């Protein structure tokens, strides 16, 4: 029954994607493997999806990259500092002085 999907790239890709979120049943894993043996496009896309997943994890984790790669524009930085210092100055003395 499931073998009708063996030549269906869309269905195979759906399974590959679900396989990235949960463990697939053995039958589906076999289907994917068989399909990939015959299909260069899906083999390529699977590698791309895996690299996409790894890249997402990198963005979510690497603090150094964030510091260096996406800095605030100088103008934004200035604006933000002015706004914050203004807010600080407007605070009642008792709160501002700690």
């Amino acid at each position: 029954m499931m073998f009708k999907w063996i030549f269906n790239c869309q269905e195979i890709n759906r399974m590959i994607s679900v396989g990235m979120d949960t463990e697939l049943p053995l039958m589906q894993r076999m289907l994917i493997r068989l399909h990939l043996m015959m299909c260069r496009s899906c083999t390529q896309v699977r590698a791309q999806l895996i690299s996409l997943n790894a890249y997402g994890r990198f963005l979510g984790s690497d603090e150094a990259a964030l510091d260096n790669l996406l800095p605030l524009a100088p103008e934004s930085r200035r604006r933000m500092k002015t706004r914050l210092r203004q807010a600080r100055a407007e605070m009642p003395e008792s709160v501002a002085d700690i």
Partner: protein
Amino acid sequence: MPHNDANRLSDDPGVWVDRYGDYLYGYALIKTGDPTVAEDLVQEALLAALKARKDFKKRSTVKTWLTAILKHKLMDYYRKKYRNRETESVDTVAATPDPQFNRRGQWQVKPGNWIIDPAEHYAQKEFIQAFLKCVDDLPPRQARAFTMREIDGVSTKEICKHLAISTTNCWVMLHRARLALRHCLELNWFKDQTGSP
């Protein structure tokens, strides 16, 4: 920055911008994909931190504390953004044919021969921007699901709860998001490597 400053909160909030501004901004930009929104959120977070700075405990670092406040602001932002988005239901997503495939489920255009290479792309500013632009171009809930899953590493179960959809629908969303993102990167970044035989 001296090492022992990590858990010392400066009296001047301008210094916070200098020390943690880039980090917080990068963090917000990666989650929202929108420079203006990211900047506003960082400012809101820092203003909130200023009001609440008596609550800062030296147990954590300033960076961790500020990031936690920013996370709250991000959650508020998402709540507002998705409140009126019932139109983009999962049924619509599942029922809309994926233009990348023909009716028999074969690729319309052969996928290109590329991969995101750590050595080449990870530290490249233009690539991050192209990637975030592609995420931003996704339908909002797909973008959110993708960011939560792939960048925040949240479990599918939690994402379903957050978006109030079933697990199966969650998978549909994620699957569509991944393929659409792949396609977008191929068109916009890897265009010279498309059309492999």
